[in-house]
Structure formats: structure tokens, C-alpha cells
């Protein structure tokens, strides 16, 4: 254990930072420096070390120190908890006048291991770790430059058994830097008034480098036999040593690390002395040492009591205590030290030897010089040139990083090209992402090494920037679900801000065109994909009107008429002031006037009336209501007591069942017009888009018996109907109206439905048996597949028009259309703000909205087929009243 213990009490001084700062130890140093005027020899120990190696490269120094003990001072260094990435320990052997320097860097596996398991200094991230190890390596190289400048002898410790060729490259790098920094270093030394040779050379001498191998593959099974057999005098180890010397010499010579003139080289190896030492003694672990002692003790079985107290190391147990005076390593090293302290080295070769540079300063001088040199190599240089030279360290040391970076820079444009290849002027986000994946793939295919991640990030940024810079598609979804295909733009209605000022001003356009008919259905035209519901439901139809339907009679639908310029959209929260005024009292008045009305709360939406209005019983017949029916909406509509509409706030969306009270839309999304006064059932409608012989309205026979015998009539009607459906025999006691529900597809195809599941087809005979019964008494779908869907792509038609022919009879027809455009809780949409509308005689056409939009919720056609069935027109959208004409 002695070795270990010594190691600790030996103490260390740190070769750098300024030792002056350290109190009493400085005194010791000064005292010593003043006393000791002899020249000193400086020995540096560098190299790699494995984690558990014993003896380690530090214990080497211990083994050669004089038994009197070295003078050590300074402070212990800890690689992890200090900012230093490497440190130099030193100790001075005052008896032999030798200064020992010991470099600890990340090449000592012990240090590396603690760095790896440390979580300090941002080492937990990969980037931080890489940065740390890189700069630690650079620091180690600087430390080597320092040591090569202030040492006479440099011992390179090899934990293995063969020369580490990595040093060849390292020596090259050190040599390049040394020669470049020489003049700068000379300036530093000149200021200290050192001998001229020293200043010019920038170092004490061309240091001698000695190689130490800690292990060998030679196993001494039968060394004696081998030696004898070959009749050689030298031991195998000696032969190996010489072979390795030759090997190293040839390699360094070839690499021009060592040359004939040692003054010009980074270092020299002695020509006539051994410079390779191979430690052929297996290191003995402490535990084995003691175990063996114990075994021996027991084996000797106390035969020999004297041996019990023997403290001598058994002769056969080498390794652990290397500091025995005759240790071969000590012998090996001391010959060099002795030479350095006496004659100095002359490792020049060749015919015309140059006088070597060799300085052996006193400790004091050396310490001053070393401090200055250390500062030169480790502190930020003021000289720009010197700084640039130090900057080269990174490039020289980290070929991998440089290669990877160079490769990535080369590949980056390739990958960007791959991204832009074949892209249109502007494109969607999906295209962008797909191309980015493609570009990344190209990048990863050609890029290499540790810089990849960083450049991959840059690629992503660059591509995204390219996309967003004038190549991004607007992609604003139209109301039918198609994206706007224009480049990113601002709308003419948008206010110009800093964010959007650079964008071109244009309208949305999905480039999808559909074919549609106008309000009355007599004219078809192309329509552009709408992006707002006003265009969809009002503007386009308004445009068509000028060339077609403006001559037709309109059923007016109430819209908002502003009384003040600052009208605003109202919502459920902002109720109009009028309606808010005293809705309860008004409703009270309403209920007083119409006491039979069962209004139970203030939310008197029209649907509520309808719920009252639709008798469950009328399954098989048209409904009869007398004018005096308590459920008639007439009085309500005419009543002055009815709520007044706001003139300040308007409805943001369309009229539907959940609207707040008293708000009117700015325009009507519906249109109700009278097409003509009469309808010719044999000719049908003459409108475009229908298949031949399919534009017929379905007959709707309404019995005309008095309402007092209503149930009997109903029965009778039933019998009649069963007997002679479709015949005119019951014309005497019934009136015939005509109804048609028209569906329209985006390609302009139109048809009527004859039932919830059935497209109306004209029978070949020309006489059709179907009546309007099914469509009136069943919920009709809002969407239905078009007959043009067979060819692969399916088109959906949408319920667009309702045709009603009202015959001139006392019977009144009430229009009570309620469309539910989505599964519950979707509201019901209807054209009329105040309940059912009465239709006077004539052929009426009710045009439905193109899109349904209420309370800032858009109800597009569901993509899910299951939900499609819940989009419907509620049954009983036409009802019959008798007597007083409706409004």
C-alpha cells in the first residue's frame, strides 16, 4: 500500500494558475528557490491511463522520487469540479533536483469516467458533452505544448503493449503549432531576460521523449529455454525493447517528427541510449498482495516464527512497490536525468552536427519562465495572429467534426434542391411536409457524422422559410370544404397590418366550379366555390336574378333594416335592446291575447309552434285546420303584439330555431317566388338539368270535405285512395295540388325525389302512380347520391328547391320548412322568422340555402355516411288550412 499512501502525501502543485496566490506554500517555494541555485531537470509524464491501472502513471513518479521525500506544494486538482479540463500536477525532488510534471486529462480513463457520469456543466445534453470533450482535448493539446516547452524529458505512458500511432498525428499537430507560435512565445520569454538560446528556441532544449509500456504480451513461460536455444545473451524483454525502439524510431523518422537536427524537431530520441521501457512485471493488486501473504503465512504453518514479523516484500512479489532503489525503471530514467543535469542532451545526428540548445535553469528561473509560458498557452492571446494559430487547434484535432460539417454543408443545397424539385409556385402544407420528408431523406442519405443533427435542423428551417416566403398556399377552406388554391394572401376586406402588408390582395379561390340553377331554377350557370355564406346563399343568386327571375313575384322574407349606421352582429349573448326591453311583459300580452296559446317560456321560437302545430295523428292524410283552430299561426303573425325586430343588431348567421329573439338576418338565404299562375301536369316543368320526362311534380290530392266530419272523411279518403289511387275519380271531393322536392348536384344534374330513398322516374306509360304522400309525410334527406355517381367518383346532390302548385281553392297551404343540416344538437333552419308562411295560389318555388351557417357554426355536408342520414328536411313541411286566406 506504500505506493498509494505516498501518492497522497506527495501533494501536488498545479503548474498553472498562479501559484503566488497560495499563502504559505509560496513562502516555501520562495525559500527553496532562493536557496537552490543548482540547475534542475524537468521530467513530464503524459499519456493514457486506464481506469484501474496500478501502477498508474502518477505512481511512476513516486517510484523514482528520492526516499527523503519530495517537496510538493500547491493544491490538489479535481477535473470535474473545477473549470479546468486538464491539470498538471508537479512535485519537486530536492535531493536530485528534478521537477516532475504530471498531466491529467480526459485521456486518463479515470477522469473520463467521472466526466461521463457527471451531470454538471451541461454535460447531460449530448451537445454539451461533445463540446466539453472537444474543448478538453484542445486544452490537453495546449498542456502538451506547454510541457514540450518547459521540459527536458517527456515520458509517454502507454497502458498497452504497443506503440500508439495516434501520437504520430498528435505530434504533427503540436509541431505545426509550435513552429507557428515560436516567435510569439519568444517575445514572452524575452521579457523575462532569459538566455538568448532559450528565447530563440522557445524551450529549454529539444526534449527527449521516452516511451513506457505498462504491459507486454510476452509471457515468461520458458524464457530461459528460449534464450538458451537460440544462444542469445540478451533477454527476450531486451530484444522486444530494442525491436520496439527500432519500430518507433522508423515511424517517427518517416513521419519527420524526429530529424537529424533536433533543434528543428518537436523532440528527439537518444541515439545511443534506451528510450523504451517495458514493464514486464504484472501489476499486483493490493488485495492479491495481502492474500498471498496470508496464504504463505498459513502455509508456513508457523514453522518459522521469524517470518511472521517479516515486513520485507517477498522477492517474488514485484510490481506494487516500484520504488525499490534497484528498480529497472528507476535505472532507466535516472541515466537520462543524470545526463540532463550534467552534460545536457545532444541528440543531433548527421555529419555536420549543430550545437544543441540546452538550458538547465535554477528552480526559481524555471518557475518564472514556466508561469509565463503557461499563461501564454492558456490565456486568451492578445495578438490576433497567435489567436488564429490557436484557433487552428480545433480543425487539426477534430477531423471527424470537420469532415462531417464539410459533408453536411455540401449536401445541404442538394437536399434543398430535392425539396424544391417539381414544386408548383405555391403549395399546401401537406405538400410542404411531404417534400420536407423527401429532402431530409436525401440529406440523411449523403450526410455523415456528428454534425448531421444540427444541419438537419437547418434544412428544416430553410425549407419552411422557403415555403412561407411566397410559396405557401392559402388553404383557407371553402364552405364546401375545398381549400383556397391561391398563394397566401389577404382579403380585400382585411385591414392592412404589418403582418400581412407584404401579402398580395385577392379573394379566396378554390378553383372548384359547380353548376347550379338560379332562384327559380330556369337558368343554370357556373358558380365558384363560395368562401362566405353570403356569396353562397345570396350574392350569386342575386346576380342570376337580373337575367332571369327578377320578373317573378317574390314572397318577401323579413331582413334587417338598420336605423343607425353602427349596426352590429348580435348573438345569443347580446340581445337586441327592444327585445330585451321587457320580453316577459310582451309575451304576457301575447299570451293574454291568445290565451289558448301554450307559451310557457320566453323563448318562443317558431319551432315551438310547430311542435304544437303538428298533430301526431295525421299520418295518412293531409291535415285540416279550421281558421278558428287554436293552433293557427295567423293571429300570431298579424298580431301587433308580436315582438318587434331589432334595428340595431342583426343576426350574424341564418335564421334557425336557436336564434335569439328579435334579430333579423342582413339578407335572406332563402327565396320564395311564384313561378307562374298555373301548372300543366302533362308538360311538367320546363327547366334545364333534368333528365327527360322527370321534371314532373307529384300530385297531392286533398279532400275537400268539411272539417266537422273530418275523421269520417279521413276514413273515406283512405278507402278511396286504396281503391283508385292515381285516378281522377275522387276529383269531385278532393283538390289536386302538386309538389316537387328538387335535388341538385355540383355538376348541375337535377331531379325530384318520390320518397326518402327514391329518385322520381317517369314511367314509360306516361301515367305515374306516385303521389306526394311519401315526401310530405316522411323526413326527406338533405343530401342524396346523384344518379351520375356511378362513374367512380360519387357526387352528392343537395335539396335545393321545393316546387308547390297551389290550386285556387279555399284551402290554404302553409309552408313550414325546417331543415336540420347536421346530427343533433343542430338547430333547425327555416326561411320564416315568425312561423309558417301561407302560400297563395300559383306555382311556387322555394329555393333552399346552399350552405347552412348559424351562430358562427358552419354545417357542411358530413363526410361520415352515418351522419348523413340525420341531415334532413323535417316532414310536414306543407300543411293545409281551410278558410281565411293566410297572409
Amino acid at each position, binding site marked *: 500500500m506504500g505506493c498509494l499512501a505516498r501518492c497522497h502525501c506527495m501533494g501536488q502543485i498545479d503548474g498553472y494558475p498562479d501559484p503566488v496566490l497560495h499563502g504559505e506554500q509560496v513562502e516555501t517555494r520562495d525559500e527553496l528557490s532562493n536557496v537552490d541555485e543548482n540547475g534542475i531537470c524537468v521530467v513530464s509524464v503524459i499519456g493514457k491511463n486506464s481506469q484501474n*491501472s496500478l501502477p498508474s502513471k502518477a505512481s511512476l513518479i513516486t517510484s523514482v522520487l528520492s526516499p527523503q521525500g519530495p517537496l510538493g506544494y500547491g493544491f490538489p486538482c479535481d477535473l470535474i469540479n473545477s473549470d479546468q479540463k486538464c491539470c498538471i500536477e508537479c512535485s519537486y525532488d530536492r535531493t536530485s533536483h528534478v521537477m516532475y510534471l504530471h498531466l491529467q486529462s480526459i485521456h486518463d480513463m479515470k477522469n473520463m469516467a467521472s466526466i461521463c457520469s457527471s451531470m454538471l456543466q451541461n454535460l447531460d445534453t449530448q451537445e454539451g458533452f461533445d463540446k466539453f470533450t472537444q474543448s478538453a482535448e484542445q486544452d490537453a493539446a495546449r498542456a502538451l505544448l506547454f510541457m514540450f516547452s518547459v521540459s527536458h524529458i517527456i515520458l509517454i505512458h502507454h497502458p498497452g503493449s504497443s506503440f500508439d500511432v495516434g501520437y504520430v*498525428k498528435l505530434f504533427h499537430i503540436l509541431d505545426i503549432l509550435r513552429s507557428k507560435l515560436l516567435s510569439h512565445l519568444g517575445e514572452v520569454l524575452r521579457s523575462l531576460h532569459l538566455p538568448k538560446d532559450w528565447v530563440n528556441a522557445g524551450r529549454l532544449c529539444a526534449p527527449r521523449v521516452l516511451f513506457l509500456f505498462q504491459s507486454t504480451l510476452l509471457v515468461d513461460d520458458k524464457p530461459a529455454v528460449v534464450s538458451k536455444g537460440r544462444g542469445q545473451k540478451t533477454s527476450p524483454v531486451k530484444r522486444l525493447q530494442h525491436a520496439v525502439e527500432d519500430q518507433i524510431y*522508423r515511424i517517427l523518422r518517416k513521419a519527420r517528427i524526429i530529424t537529424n537536427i533536433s533543434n528543428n524537431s518537436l523532440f528527439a530520441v537518444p541515439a545511443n541510449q534506451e528510450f523504451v521501457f517495458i514493464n514486464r512485471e504484472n501489476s499486483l493488486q493490493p488485495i492479491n498482495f495481502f492474500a498471498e501473504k496470508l496464504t504463505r503465512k498459513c502455509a508456513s504453518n508457523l514453522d518459522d516464527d521469524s517470518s511472521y514479523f517479516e515486513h520485507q516484500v517477498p522477492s517474488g512479489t514485484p510490481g506494487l512497490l516500484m520504488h525499490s532503489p534497484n528498480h529497472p525503471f528507476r535505472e532507466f530514467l535516472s541515466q537520462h536525468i543524470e545526463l540532463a543535469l550534467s552534460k545536457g542532451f545532444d541528440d543531433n545526428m548527421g555529419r555536420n552536427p549543430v550545437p544543441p540548445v540546452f538550458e538547465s535553469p535554477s528552480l526559481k528561473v524555471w518557475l518564472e519562465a514556466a508561469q509565463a509560458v503557461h499563461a501564454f498557452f492558456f490565456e486568451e492571446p492578445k495578438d490576433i495572429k497567435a489567436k488564429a494559430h490557436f484557433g487552428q487547434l480545433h480543425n487539426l484535432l477534430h477531423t471527424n467534426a470537420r469532415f462531417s460539417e464539410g459533408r453536411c454543408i455540401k449536401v445541404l443545397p442538394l437536399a434543398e434542391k430535392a425539396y424544391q424539385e417539381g414544386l408548383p409556385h405555391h403549395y399546401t402544407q401537406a405538400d410542404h411536409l411531404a417534400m420536407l420528408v423527401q429532402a431530409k431523406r436525401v440529406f440523411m442519405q449523403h450526410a455523415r457524422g456528428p454534425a448531421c443533427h444540427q444541419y438537419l435542423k437547418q434544412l428544416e428551417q430553410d425549407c419552411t422559410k422557403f415555403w412561407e416566403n411566397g410559396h405557401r398556399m392559402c388553404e383557407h377552406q371553402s364552405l364546401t370544404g375545398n381549400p383556397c388554391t391561391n398563394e397566401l394572401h389577404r382579403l380585400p376586406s382585411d385591414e392592412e397590418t404589418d403582418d400581412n402588408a407584404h401579402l398580395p390582395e385577392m379573394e379566396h379561390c378554390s378553383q372548384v366550379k359547380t353548376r347550379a340553377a338560379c332562384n327559380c331554377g330556369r337558368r343554370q350557370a357556373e358558380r365558384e366555390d363560395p368562401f362566405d355564406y353570403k356569396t353562397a346563399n345570396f350574392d350569386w343568386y342575386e346576380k342570376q336574378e337580373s337575367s332571369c327571375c327578377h320578373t317573378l313575384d317574390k314572397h318577401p322574407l323579413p331582413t334587417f333594416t338598420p336605423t343607425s349606421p353602427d349596426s352590429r352582429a348580435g348573438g345569443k349573448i347580446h340581445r337586441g335592446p327592444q327585445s330585451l326591453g321587457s320580453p316577459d311583459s310582451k309575451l304576457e300580452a301575447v299570451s293574454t291575447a291568445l290565451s289558448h296559446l301554450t307559451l310557457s317560456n320566453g323563448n318562443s321560437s317558431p319551432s315551438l309552434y310547430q311542435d304544437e302545430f303538428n298533430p301526431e295523428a295525421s299520418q295518412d292524410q293531409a291535415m285540416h285546420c279550421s281558421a278558428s283552430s287554436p293552433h293557427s299561426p295567423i293571429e300570431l303573425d298579424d298580431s301587433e303584439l308580436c315582438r318587434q325586430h331589432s334595428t340595431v343588431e342583426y343576426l350574424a348567421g341564418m335564421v334557425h330555431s336557436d336564434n335569439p329573439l328579435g334579430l333579423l338576418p342582413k339578407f335572406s338565404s332563402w327565396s320564395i317566388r311564384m313561378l307562374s299562375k298555373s301548372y300543366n301536369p302533362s308538360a311538367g316543368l320546363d327547366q334545364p338539368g333534368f333528365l327527360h320526362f322527370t321534371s314532373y311534380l307529384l300530385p297531392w290530392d286533398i279532400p275537400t270535405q268539411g272539417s266537422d266530419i273530418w275523421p269520417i272523411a279521413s276514413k273515406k279518403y283512405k278507402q278511396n285512395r286504396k281503391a283508385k289511387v292515381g285516378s281522377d275519380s275522387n276529383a269531385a271531393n278532393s283538390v289536386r295540388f302538386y309538389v316537387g322536392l328538387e335535388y341538385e348536384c355540383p355538376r348541375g344534374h337535377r331531379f325530384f325525389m318520390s320518397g326518402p330513398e327514391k329518385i322520381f322516374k317517369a314511367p314509360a306509360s306516361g301515367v305515374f302512380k306516385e303521389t306526394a304522400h311519401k315526401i310530405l309525410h316522411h323526413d326527406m334527406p338533405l343530401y342524396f347520391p346523384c344518379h351520375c355517381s356511378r362513374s367512380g367518383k360519387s357526387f352528392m346532390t343537395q335539396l335545393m328547391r321545393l316546387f308547390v302548385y297551389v290550386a285556387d281553392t279555399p284551402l290554404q297551404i302553409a309552408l313550414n320548412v325546417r331543415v336540420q343540416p347536421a346530427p343533433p344538437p343542430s338547430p333547425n333552419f327555416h326561411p320564416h322568422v315568425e312561423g309558417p308562411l301561407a302560400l297563395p295560389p300559383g306555382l311556387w318555388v322555394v329555393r333552399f340555402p346552399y350552405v347552412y351557417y348559424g351562430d358562427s357554426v358552419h354545417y357542411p355536408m358530413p363526410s361520415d355516411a352515418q351522419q348523413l342520414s340525420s341531415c334532413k328536411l323535417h316532414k310536414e313541411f306543407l300543411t293545409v288550412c281551410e278558410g281565411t286566406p293566410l297572409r
Partner: protein
Amino acid sequence: MEQSVKLVDEDLLWCESGNFALQDQTDFSVIGAIGLQGSGKSTVLSHLAGVVPQEANRSVVFHPQSRTVREVCSHQTAGIDLHLTEERTIFLDSQPVLSASILDQMIQHDVKYHGEYSTVENCMEMQSLQLGSFLFTVCNIVIVVMEGFSDLNVFRFLQTAEMLKPQTPQPHDSPSEGLSEIYPHIVFVVNHAGADDFKAGSYEKMQTVISRLMSQSNLKFKGVCNMRDLIPGLSSSSPHSDVNLYLLPEKASVSDQLDDPLSMHYRGYPTFEFIIESLTKKLLAMPRHLLTHTTLTEKNWFHYAARSWESVKKSGLISEYNRLLP
């Protein structure tokens, strides 16, 4: 196959001799070894190939360094040797990388290195990288044999070789481009480990170092074989605990194996034979992964390897790297 045959000769030229024993079947795996000079690649591979350790050199598949070689600190294996076992495992033993002896030999024989290499040591380094890249391309498992756990350069070398590895060839008939690269499994074997190395803390430290140093690598250096079942006290909670690391102690010398109780030493770790057997079992039990995107037969593999060797030798990447060397 009793002896190994040359796949690549000492001049690093491809040899066709390895082809004869290969069959047209697809159930095989390739294990290669790489490492510095004298780290024990041949010895470890010979043991993995099932050679009884005690027997004399003659029956060894891959020749370990002879005494003469050791005495001059030279290298034994030159080029790449191939050995095929009955279990259809192909073992590839390569010459040492970054070897002083090979460098010295090149200098002594005045090898005409290719004009593109500025110095002979760069030439040697590039050759080493070629060997490494080649093994990464054609092996399922590459065993990195180290003489003691001390050299960071080994890890740097592995990452450089990985960086310069030629691309996994894309199948011609595949419509989708850019299938992912295939990387081999890496198993670190530390030879000549001492008693201290077998302590749990030590072993974990080594795993941590490997894991941190290799963390950017795509080589699969985790999850195949570690010594958790051999070293007591290892915690499995460490994030690095599944790094492929095996420690091999010194082989006990003949004298130690005598039954003399007095010469019995306290070891504190399993014997060499026991550990190598455990390693063999784990390596051979590994699922056999594809080397390319298409399934190869042994014969296909040989041709694939020949092509890979050529592409490694002519690699633009490698010459690009070479130009950056100082």
C-alpha cells in the same frame, strides 16, 4: 473447415478462396473482430469459434501471436481471415487497425502507397478505416477487442469508420427509395481485465463511458450481451446498463491450474473459460438480422462482401476524409 482461409490478403486484395465452403442457404450470421494491435482479436474469435483453449496453436482457427511475433511487437493476422463453423457462423478476423507494426512494415518494405495519401501514416489510418467500414457493412456483429479499457481513440475510430461506411445497397425492385441504413451490433470486449475491473462500480463506469462516447452513433452497441448475470451487484436501473460490454481476464497460466492449494489465488471473478463460454452462448443465441434489405444466402453474402470491399476501397467518402487529415 478446420483452418481459416484468407478473405483479404496482406496487400488488402480480395481473395476468392473463401467461397468454396459457402452454401446456398440463408440461415447464417457473420461475426467480425476489430481492434488494436495485440488486443487479442484472433484469440477471442478462436474461442468463440469453439476451440478448446488449452490446445496447442496448431488446432487454433485464427493464429494468435506467436512468440516470435510478440518478441518484436509485431502483428500476426494480415488482411482478413475467414472461418466457417458448423453452426453456419462466419467469423472474420481482421488485421489490427492503427497498428504501429503495420505502419512500420509499410515503411520498411517501402510500400508504394497510393498517390492520394500524403503520408504513410495517413495511408495506414485510411486502410484501418477501410477495414472498419468493411466489417460494419458485412457483419451482423462486430466485436471490438480492447487491451484494457484505456484508449479513447478506439471509440473515435469506430465512429469514423461508421461515418465512412458505404450505404446499404437499395434493392432495385423496391419502389420506395431511402430505406434505412443497416448497422451491425457492436460488442466491446475488454481483454486482460484486472480484478478491479470486475467490480460492479468499475464495470458500470465503463458502460457509462462507452454509452456517452458512442451516444451519437447508430451502431447498435446496446442490448445484446452484458455481464449482468456474471457480476453481482450491478444495478439494472442505470440508463447505460445494457451496453454490450464483456470483460475477459487473463487466461490462467498452466502453472496456476495445478491442483496445488497453495498456488490457488483469490481471484474475485469468473475464469476466462467460463466468461468466454457465456459470451459465446449469448452471441450465438442472438437473432440473425438481415445484412441488406434483401435476404442473402451464404454465397450471395460472399459476393456482397466482395462488392463492399471494392466500394470501400474506392469510396469517395474515404478519400474525402483523407484530404482533411493533417
